[in-house]
């Protein structure tokens, strides 16, 4: 019996190899090969508020960006530091409540509350998560999931921070264009910042902590310290999102600590392509509007939503971006073996 066997061979495109080094600046073709995907993303994001038909959809874009920040922080922690975080709700909640308190009690402007909530909130989240950082395994995921649930109960039980009613009367951004372009620019800033970070030497240390933490200890570095730095960076993204969110809704309540903020970023990362950093942002751009469109179906939308997820996991588990990058950089052909 002689069955002809074939195998898919993948080769880097010539232009990809040429643009790896300094030769990239030789011609417009090479230059555009490198910059076009980035330009499409940046210009596309900036154009989004302009092409949206209604104020309702413009608001959806802002929410997309909040989720994108969370998904970015999840992808960074999970695929570059090796910490699976379910703490999206914690980050949003801490950042949101901080901004709300600063705005309503001390009368600070959004211009001031957002950066302070980002830095202070990230510090608080890092302190919360510090005890489980020396541990390996699933503990980080469990503890980071527990905090938002516990904090919501504490707020309701003690009736602090507005209890179930939440904190109302928070100042808005003032202008919806300011609001949208601020969150879009923040997403772009954190996206390209994170991409740069993981390729710096300290980024290599983060990846090494994920690859092989014992070797990092043997190299004379504290893995707990580097994990804490990474958690600070990731929670800063989340807290920034939370602070923006309360100024968008002009309200802060226990729904900031909801499970949605922990789960949707993970789904977006699966759809967009894990470990690419751009993928999760794209995933949010797809998932959040879909879940808005399906609002008409009431609770049934969860079913549609799950079906999309399952389809992606079964048919394209690598995610859109990984698939796209492969097609962009490589060509494939069948070869006999």
């Amino acid at each position, binding site marked *: 019996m002689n069955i002809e066997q074939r195998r898919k061979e993948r080769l880097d495109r010539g232009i990809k190899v040429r643009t790896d080094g300094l030769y990239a600046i030789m011609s417009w073709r090479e230059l555009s090969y490198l910059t076009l995907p980035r330009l499409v993303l940046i210009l596309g994001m900036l154009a989004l508020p302009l092409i949206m038909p209604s104020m309702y959809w413009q608001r959806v874009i802002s929410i997309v960006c909040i989720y994108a920040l969370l998904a970015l922080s999840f992808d960074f922690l999970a695929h570059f530091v090796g910490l699976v975080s379910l703490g999206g709700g914690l980050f949003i909640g801490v950042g949101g409540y901080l901004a709300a308190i600063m705005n309503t009690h001390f009368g600070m402007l959004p211009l001031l509350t957002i950066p302070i909530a980002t830095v202070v909130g990230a510090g608080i989240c890092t302190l919360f998560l510090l005890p489980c950082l020396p541990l390996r395994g699933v503990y980080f995921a469990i503890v980071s999931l527990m905090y938002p649930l516990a904090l919501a109960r504490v707020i309701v039980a003690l009736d602090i921070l507005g209890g179930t009613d939440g904190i109302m009367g928070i100042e808005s951004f003032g202008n919806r264009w300011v609001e949208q372009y601020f969150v879009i620019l923040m997403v772009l800033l954190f996206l390209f910042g994170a991409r740069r970070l993981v390729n710096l030497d300290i980024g290599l240390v983060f990846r090494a902590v994920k690859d092989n933490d014992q070797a990092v200890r*043997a190299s004379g*570095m*504290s893995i707990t310290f580097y994990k804490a730095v990474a958690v600070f960076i990731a929670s800063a993204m989340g807290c920034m999102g939370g602070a923006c969110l309360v100024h968008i809704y002009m309200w802060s309540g226990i729904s900031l600590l909801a499970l949605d903020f922990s789960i949707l970023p993970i789904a977006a990362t699966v759809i967009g392509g894990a470990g690419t950093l751009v993928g999760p942002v794209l995933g949010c751009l797809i998932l959040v509007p879909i879940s808005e469109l399906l609002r008409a179906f009431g609770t049934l939308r969860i079913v549609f939503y799950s079906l999309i997820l399952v389809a992606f996991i079964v048919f394209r588990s690598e995610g859109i971006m990984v698939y796209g990058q492969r097609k962009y950089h490589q060509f494939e052909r069948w070869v006999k073996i």
Partner: protein
Amino acid sequence: MSNQPILQVQDVTKAFGGVIAVNRVSLDVNEGEIVGIIGPNGSGKTTLINCVTGFIKMTSGRVLFRGKDISGKPAHKIADMGITRTFQIMRPYYSLPCYKNLVIPLFSPRAKRTGGWRGGGKLGDRDTVGIDILEEIGFERDSFVPYKIASTLPTGYLKRLELARCLALKPEIIICDEIFSGLSMSEIASMVPLIERLQMDGITLIMIEHRLRELFRVSNRVMVLNFGEKVIEGTPEEIMANEKVKEVYFGSEEVEEVMSHA
């Protein structure tokens, strides 16, 4: 060279529950020496160095480095003082190219302080320093080898990469956990001069080995462990001649073979 031993292991004991893996083992290591630790499987060699390097906490005993008590310190603090180790099961960063593997130890506080291997307190570009270290350890500079992803390399190179990771910290002591195991005869033959050169550079080496012939050739002193206890300590010649070692550990045939080749 001062008279004080660089590393003093005093009555180190490690018990895992009821099992005593290492029982009151003491060892003095002088500066510039190569000390071998041998013993059958499960005799506590790796546990002993895990205790010394802080990767596990010892039950009792003390470890002194240049007269300073380092027992109970975390592993990264001990590595920061210059006591580095390789792992029996190699632990490179498999997804990174070889020279990028060395960027990580070169990022450590100790490397920044000392300037990395051969550095005079000033660390240049980490990629370049990494390739320099790889060249010294036997990676051909102008070949593709330093740029290859670590997971594609054969065992021989990975063992060298383990040593290179230690060298990046500019260590005072390197503890090698079975650096010869899994290598071919020719790879070992090229590894032995490397070990000797490290000794000439003033690095103190502690080597856990099963390859007795090569170990006896390079080491100044050898300690034999059995069931977590120290059987004997002495020069390679003394160890080979010792009846107790023959009976307890080697089995007579292998000793003869080692003797005839040494």
